[in-house]
């Protein structure tokens, strides 16, 4: 099981802060994960509609969509950051 956490409008649209998900064997990269999540329901499809607007962090470090997720314990999905 992998912990998936959501922030900002990704969190609002999916309707939860986090969840534990068993990732299918075919999910190797961030892009694979987005495709898988979008198959789970309308709220996911809506939240992740514009894939290029979604940022991904693996174990609290930024990764590109095409990077392997490896043996991630925690994967975060969120919009572009607007702090500062």
């Amino acid at each position, binding site marked *: 099981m992998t912990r998936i*956490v959501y*922030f*900002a*409008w990704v969190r609002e649209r999916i309707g939860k802060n986090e969840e534990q998900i068993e990732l299918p064997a075919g999910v190797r990269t961030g892009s694979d994960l987005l495709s898988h999540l979008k198959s789970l329901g309308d709220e996911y499809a809506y939240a992740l509609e514009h894939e290029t607007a979604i940022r991904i*962090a693996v174990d*609290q*470090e*930024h990764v590109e969509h095409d990077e392997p997720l490896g043996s991630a314990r925690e994967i*975060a999905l*969120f*919009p*572009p*950051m*607007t*702090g*500062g």
Partner: protein
Amino acid sequence: MPAGAAVALTVRIQTQDFDAAAECAALTAGRADIGALVTFTGLCRDEGGTLAALELEHYPGMAEAEITRICRTAIERFGLSGITAVHRIGRIAPGANIVLVIAAAPHRHAAFDGASFVMDFLKTSAPFWKKEHRADGRAGDWVDARESDARARAAWSRQPSGG
């Protein structure tokens, strides 16, 4: 910076306000090798009266880690004597503080570059998000990332190291 001189790094995320003067005093305490201190304070604007407040959300753990990574890069690149970075979260009213970055260095250009670099990277890669609460009571939007922030960050890859 002379070899062996201490490098001070403080990173904090907090709901309460910060005290820039106290943070500056802590950063320079007992040192006479610091010639320049550049302090950036980011404040909440009222956007011409349309904004009631900003709500700041963050990714606990990663936010601290990412700001720390950015500060370490700045310290190395510009030869800084130290950095203090404090970011607030929660509800922030117009006119109130959001973020504080203090860069200390022997000379001024390193301190200016260091504080500016940390802000440009913090804006684009530290996991914080702002939601608006509107003064007229209508539902506020999440603040959009600015293209100009991405350009400012990219510019650091194109220029020779300062300091």
